[in-house]
Structures are given as C-alpha cells and as structure tokens.
C-alpha cells in the first residue's frame, strides 16, 4: 500500500513568498514541505530587479552573514523621461545610500532564489523541486487538506496549505478564491535582456566609483512609444538588466511585439551608448499582476492562504513586489504557526493573516494606490505627452538665448496647451494626485 505523506504545512511555489513562508514555519518546528515545479528553485523566476533588504531582514535578521548573492547596492535611483531624440533625467544619488547592508540591491533571481531556498532548507524545510502541483485537495466540506503533485504516488497532506504560485494563479482560481483570470488591462507583460559588460565599463558609463555603487533607472515616454508602461536600466555586477513593460492590453490593441519594443528602446540614441559592446546573455519575459487592492482574491479559506503575486500583491508604481511577497509569506507562515497552536485551521482563524497584512505596508500601500491602474487605464496618453513636453520645455529653456524670458515662459505654456486642452491637463493632474493619495 502506498504510504500517506503527511506534513504540518505545505507551501506551493519557491518564489520569495513561498520560501519566506516555508522558512518561517520550519524554523518554529513545523514539519514543512516546499514544492517547486522548476528544475531548481528560481529556474522560473524572472524580474527587473531590485530587492529591498527590509523584507529580508524581517525574515532573516542575520542575512548579511549568510552572504546573499547580491549584485550591486543602489546608490543612485530615479527617472528618465525619454523623448524620441532626447532625455530629461531626474535621479538622486547620495552618500546616505552607502551603508552595509544597503537598503536595496540589484539581484538576479535564478541566483538569489536558490540562496533563499537554501536558508529555508537549513531551517528544516523539505524543499522538493521538479514537481508541479496539479490541484489542491479538499474534503467534502471544501476544506483544503493537501495537494496532488505530478509525481507518482504524489498526494501530500497537511492541515494547512500556503499557495505562493505567482502571477499565473491557476490553483487560486480553481479554489474559487478569485473568479477568473485578470483581464489584459490589469496585467503587464515585461521583457528583459541581461547584457554582460565588464564592471569597469559599467562604472565608467554610470559614473560609479566601484562595485560598492549601483544605479537603478526607471524610464518613461518614448521608451514605451508613449504608451502606458515603463522601461528600466539597472546595473548588475558585471552586466546590465534592460527591459520594457506595458499593459498586455496595449500589446494586443496596437499589435505590438514586445521584443521589437525592447529592440527599439535599446537603439535609442540616449540608451545605446550604455550597452555598447555588451554581450546579450539572456532574454526572458514575465507578467506583473496589476490587480490592485480592489480586485485581490480572498486571502484565506478553510485550510489555505494565498501570498505574493498569486494574490496580486504588487506596488507597480514603486516597482515593488518581492518585498510584499516575502512579507506576506512570512505573515502567512506566522499565522499557520498560531493555527497549529490553536488547532484551528478555519477561514475565520486564518483571516488573522489578512488583518496582519492590513496593518503592514503590504496592504496599506496597495490601498493607497488602489486607483493607480485605473488612472493609467483611462489616461493612456499621459506618459507620452508629458515626457515629450518636458523634453521640449528643456530644449526651449536651455536654448532661449536673446528671447525675453517672459516670452519664453509664455511659449512653454503654449506648448502644453497645443498638445492637450488646458482642462485635459488639469484633469490629468487631479486624477494623478488622487491615484497617488489613494
């Protein structure tokens, strides 16, 4: 007879959400299994990307001694507003960013995620890779009791299952925690290339003194052909991560090919010099859920909790996702520990997890920016119009020799009115402020 595999807790998915959950539970003595479908933990995971140490420190106070595979600390961050042949740069560089460990680092996920999984494994979690969860098992009353994997003899049981399956949340949908897929205007598709370049070239081009400095630039306007979306240029140790992301709906409506938009961005006269001589090492693509606070799935039901991208926990405005995922995974893990102590795995008990998230930055930030996706959705001209405007203003401002300054100012106001009616502009501004204030 086949043996029944029983654990105290099952985690589906080895991204930051799932690994944080598994680590938290295993450390407290729960018999925990983490199931990941990739060839190794991290094989499927792909992002910009920047990681924030506050979330890692909450999970692992001594993370620095465990030598995480960071690329570069961020010492300069900001925005570039790109027009077809020019750029306005707004970045912030400060000595205040220089402390160890720094607040944020660039990382490569196929290297960082395995490190984090190793910490979970050291804490006692059983990490099983190359295994896909096909469905979640429920008893006759609908309570979650385990998962079915694609291994022979692959059913695994536990009183609590944490689903951290990422943006393609098929299990979450099948459980009915969210009705169906997000529509294409609430997910962004991003493509990226990791381009290898000697450290000394990166440092010279970005004005960095050494490996102890790094830059993360988010780029708007012509980078996405004026459509709602962002592009990015991040420095790694010996490479550059360059990518573009737009709402999937934009690709569909305009029949655009993501790799052509990326190639166009790479050819831009302002961008091209940064990449010169680099060797393309890897291309990839991933979705970003722009679910927003109001469209999130139910986070807990009997015997189950959902964390990270699977629940749409992303703050797209500040390119944050891994820190929300890691914090949510940790909080789900803590709730699971309490549920074991109380012997209560009901939805009512597990809803404490939602409460904890509401009291943390995770849901506070998501609540504040709840209107942001709607703003971009209803104001698609925003980025293009204003990026071009800023560049034209800058050009006029810096080349207005021999023109009375008052006339120059009038010209600048006129330039904006030509593009959009004054009321249109005022409306955009009000909408933007409202979306930011929440």
């Amino acid at each position: 007879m086949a043996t029944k595999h029983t654990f105290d807790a099952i985690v589906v998915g080895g991204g930051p959400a799932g690994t944080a959950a598994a680590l938290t539970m295993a450390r407290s003595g729960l018999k925990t299994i983490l199931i990941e479908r990739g060839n190794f933990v991290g094989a499927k995971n792909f992002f910009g990307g920047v990681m924030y140490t506050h979330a890692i420190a909450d999970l692992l106070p001594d993370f620095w001694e465990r030598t995480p595979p960071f690329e570069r600390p961020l010492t300069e961050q900001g925005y570039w507003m790109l027009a077809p042949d020019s750029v306005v740069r707004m970045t912030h560089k400060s000595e205040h960013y220089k402390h160890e460990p720094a607040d944020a680092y660039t990382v490569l996920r196929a290297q960082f995620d395995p490190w984090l999984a190793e910490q979970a494994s050291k804490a006692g979690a059983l990490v099983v890779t190359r295994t896909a969860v096909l469905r979640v098992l429920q008893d006759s009353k609908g309570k979650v009791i385990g998962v079915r994997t694609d291994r022979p003899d692959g059913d695994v049981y536990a009183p609590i299952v944490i689903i951290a399956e990422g943006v393609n949340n098929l299990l979450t949908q099948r459980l009915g925690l969210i009705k169906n897929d997000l529509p294409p205007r609430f997910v962004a598709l991003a493509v990226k290339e990791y381009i290898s370049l000697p450290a000394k070239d990166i440092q010279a081009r970005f004005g960095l003194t050494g490996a102890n400095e790094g830059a993360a630039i988010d780029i708007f306007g012509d980078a996405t052909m004026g459509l709602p979306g962002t592009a990015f240029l991040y420095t790694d140790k010996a490479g550059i991560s360059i990518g573009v992301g737009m709402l999937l709906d934009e690709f569909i409506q305009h029949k655009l090919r993501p790799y052509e938009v990326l190639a166009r961005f790479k050819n831009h006269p302002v961008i091209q010099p940064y990449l010169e001589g680099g060797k393309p090492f890897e291309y990839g693509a991933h979705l970003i859920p722009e679910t927003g606070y109001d469209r999130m799935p139910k986070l807990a039901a009997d015997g189950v909790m959902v964390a990270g991208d699977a629940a749409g926990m992303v703050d797209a405005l500040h390119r944050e996702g891994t820190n929300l995922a890691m914090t949510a995974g940790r909080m789900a893990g803590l709730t699971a520990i309490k549920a074991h102590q109380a012997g209560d795995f009901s939805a009512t008990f597990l809803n404490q997890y939602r409460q904890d998230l509401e009291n943390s930055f995770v849901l506070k930030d998501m609540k504040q920016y709840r209107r942001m996706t709607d703003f971009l959705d209803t104001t698609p001209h925003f980025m293009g119009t204003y990026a071009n405007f800023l560049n034209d203003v800058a050009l006029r401002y810096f080349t207005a020799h021999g023109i009375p300054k008052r006339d120059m100012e009038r010209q600048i106001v006129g330039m904006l009115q030509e593009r959009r009616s004054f009321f249109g502009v005022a409306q955009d501004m009000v909408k933007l402020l409202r979306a930011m204030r929440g």
Partner: protein
Amino acid sequence: MKLKKKKGQSHEPLSPELRATLPKVNINDLVVSIKYYVDEDFAHIQIRDHSVCTRCATKPCLDFCPVQVFTADAQGKIMVGYQACVECGSCRIGCPLKNVDWQLPRGGHGVAYKFG
C-alpha cells in the same frame, strides 16, 4: 454615428510613422539565449479549437507572445511551437476568444533561467 468611448478603450491608434520606428527582430537570436528542459512528450500550450482561430479577426497571439510561439502556416492555420515558451501566461489571458489551453509544463521541464 457617435461611438461611445468605453472605460479602458481609449486607445488611439499608433501613427504609421511611429510604427515604422520598430526594428525587425529575429526572435531566434533571443531564444537561443534561453535554457530549456524541453518535454518532447507533452505540449503544455495547445489551441483548443482551430476553427475558432479562423474567426479571430486580429490574431493578437502572433504578436504579443514574447518568444513567438504562435505562427501562422501558409494556409493561415495557427501553429504552436510550445518548446520556446517561457511560461509567461500572456496567451492564456490575452487570447480574446479564450482559445488557448494553457497548462504548466510537467515538473522539471520548460524554461530554466540562468540569470532571471
């Protein structure tokens, strides 16, 4: 006739001049950089019903798939080269007729990023 503008549908078409600035890209040059553990025995991306595709006016999957898994053959039939799929999920969400049967590859198969 007055067209009512629906929320989220305010897409003004791209100007032909802007579209002309898009460079042609040979997708194979990008796909060769990606490591895969191809499952030759299981196609995780499939067209549910090819006759539905013939009714699909815009066929957006041909363009938005980031690795061009979808191509049209000489007769216009949609072909699925699932081996190059990076499992992003766009076709599941983006096919307007929900005609893509989207599954995960079997455990251990599919894309395996080296850098991510």
